[in-house]
């Protein structure tokens, strides 16, 4: 997804886009209000969140053991487990499964891991047609766009934009487009046709249950169930960290996931799959896939273990930190330029892929702590943003003008006479540049501050001068 356009250029573009601003404001306000209502009705909410955090911490600390247990349990129920170290291995595994079962068409329910490994492009190259079936992801697919929220992928689009895509790309009639429910019904018909003929269903996995080898997929639309029921082959992609030890532990997670994401007590379809349909000699379960594969994707996750970013592996992908973040609320998901946007993305993306081209993301935060406040498992995102900023300074990825500025400041601070001289010079400059006590333009790199905010003019007398006057 990375582009030659810089983070700051994307932010500027987003801030100038009034339609985007309106869409982001409407969506994040609705989602945050929903979340508050959801938790208001939950007795012992704090206790449940603490409990959920403890489950995640415990599981991540013993991840190797639980993965082995999960693999054994999936296998015992007739499923297959595959392990992918990298994105390339993961897509190769999925393409291999498609070849093995002779699959030419696939329906897909929402999976952030599949975005991360860029699965659709790879499958198209391997001759498999992929149809995104989550309504938002379907619209992203026909628009050749990218999701801008991990739960609500087209949070950045208006209904007029969607209607235009349906009209020009799918031949929708004015009747199909007269309101949002009609547009949804139109999409249902288009997607149902895809479901009825697909050979393969591809899903993500919200959780894996180590004890039972079960995979939990939550959707509101029901596309997660259709994807994992109608086609004869089901392939699930899941990050290696997404396990919980037992079904009872899963119950704890489910109580907070729907509430945090959309303010729902439970997501409409909480789907728990344990192996392919069970059949013996043509009798047994009537429907469901004959083949069930789980692909466990590492792609940089295991390297986070044992380090200061390990806590990001507790994340259950509810999206609450995005909705709560004042930066995300303003700029939307695309400005981040990464698959995972918002506060979680600002930690996860440099964590998985290295600071390199992602060194700006940890700066996309005011460190206000709203993300930590709403996180259902209380992940300390600001702590990790700070440690990434530290690391980026140590790795020398700070712009040279900042380094030079800090060197100059230190030079002055060690030389009292030079410091006072510089103060006086700054005061003269400040007086010339300010109006009514505020400076609204500074040339050079510091204009990045004054482009968006005024800076207070320097006081007529410095602290040291006043102190000396008092003690004289």
């Amino acid at each position, binding site marked *: 997804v990375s582009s030659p356009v810089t983070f700051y250029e994307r932010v500027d573009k987003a801030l100038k886009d009034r339609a985007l601003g309106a869409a982001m404001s409407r*969506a994040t306000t609705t989602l945050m209000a929903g979340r508050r209502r959801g938790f208001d009705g939950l007795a012992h909410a704090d206790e449940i969140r603490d409990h959920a955090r403890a489950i995640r911490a415990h599981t991540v600390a013993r991840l190797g053991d639980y993965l082995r247990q999960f693999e054994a349990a999936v296998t015992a129920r007739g499923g297959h487990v595959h392990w992918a170290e990298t994105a390339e291995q993961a897509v190769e595994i999925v393409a291999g499964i498609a070849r093995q079962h002779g699959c030419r068409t696939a329906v897909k329910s929402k999976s952030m891991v599949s975005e991360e490994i860029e699965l659709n492009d790879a499958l198209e190259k391997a001759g498999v047609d992929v149809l995104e079936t989550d*309504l938002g992801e379907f619209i992203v697919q026909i628009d050749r766009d990218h999701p801008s929220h991990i739960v*609500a992928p087209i949070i950045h689009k208006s209904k007029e934009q969607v209607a235009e895509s349906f009209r020009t790309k799918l031949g929708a009639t004015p009747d199909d487009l007269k309101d949002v429910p009609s547009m949804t019904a139109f999409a249902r018909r288009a997607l149902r046709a895809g479901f*009825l003929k697909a050979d393969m269903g591809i899903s993500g996995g919200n959780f894996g249950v180590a004890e039972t080898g079960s995979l939990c997929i939550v959707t509101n639309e029901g596309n997660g169930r*259709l994807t994992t029921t109608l086609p004869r082959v089901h392939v699930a992609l899941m990050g290696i960290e997404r396990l919980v030890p037992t079904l009872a532990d899963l119950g704890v997670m489910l109580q907070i996931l729907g509430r945090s994401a*959309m303010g729902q*007590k439970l997501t*409409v379809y909480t789907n728990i799959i*344990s192996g392919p349909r069970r059949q013996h000699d043509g009798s047994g379960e009537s*429907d469901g896939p004959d083949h069930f594969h789980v692909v466990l994707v590492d792609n940089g996750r295991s390297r986070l273990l044992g380090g200061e970013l390990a806590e990001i592996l507790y994340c259950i992908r509810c999206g609450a930190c995005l909705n709560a973040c004042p930066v995300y609320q303003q700029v939307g998901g695309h400005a981040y330029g990464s698959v995972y946007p918002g506060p979680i993305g600002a930690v996860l993306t440099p964590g998985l892929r290295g600071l390199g081209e992602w060194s700006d993301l940890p700066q996309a935060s005011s460190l206000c702590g709203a993300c930590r406040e709403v996180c259902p498992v209380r992940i300390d995102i600001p702590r990790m943003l700070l440690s990434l900023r530290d690391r980026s300074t140590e790795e020398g990825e700070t712009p040279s003008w900042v380094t030079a500025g800090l060197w100059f400041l230190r030079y002055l601070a060690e030389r009292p006479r030079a410091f006072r001289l510089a103060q006086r010079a700054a005061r003269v400059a400040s007086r010339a540049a300010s109006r009514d006590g505020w400076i609204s333009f500074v040339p050079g790199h510091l204009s990045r501050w004054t482009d968006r905010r005024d800076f207070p003019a320097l006081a007529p007398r410095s602290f040291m001068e006043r102190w000396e006057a008092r003690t004289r």
Partner: protein
Amino acid sequence: MTDGRFNVLASIDRQIRLGGLPPAASLEHPGPPPVSDVVGDLAARFEAEATALAVTVHRARGDAAAIDTVIALLRQRSATRVLAWDADWLNCPGLADAIAGAGIALESCWMPSDPEARRARLAELDPVPVGLTGAVAGLADTGSLAVISAPGRGRMASLLPPAHIAVLRAAQIVPSLPHFLASHPDAADAGSNLVFITGPSRTGDIEMTLSRGVHGPGVVHVVVIE
């Protein structure tokens, strides 16, 4: 892909040995989850929660009343076919026979493995207007149905048609999801699919505007037999 397995597990074990996990009071498993009791009439709470989600709840006094309700609902939707679970699993003795007696054909969820036969069978079932199932439990505090698929209890009956009718006995209603999981420890092993259905299919993807029935049933009726 044994290499992938070996390398991923080796990397995990090595990194965990390096230590430095985030601050936590304890890394032990926290034990059984906090469970709060739902006080009062469970069926009433179930009805209130489900109704708030746009599920229509019908309270029926006895099997005969439930049968009348289901047949009336099927007629209301002009159903000549219904995608249904086997009679034994409908939570209401005599219901399947009564439906057949009313001239409505009961279709099973049977799916062949052969790709072409499977597509043909799906094309045949897709127009069926109503699905009919029992349920293993109702969850009072969320208004959810707990549905297990197993022989005679297909997944598609609660999924493929635009309307779903579920029959539940009032005694099957438990306070909450944690209560259900504690009282059904074999829930994941009873069949390949356990699903909690909480209201009709919905989406808010376009401008956060609620639309029902995007993929799953947009209409859900629950008949609670007391």
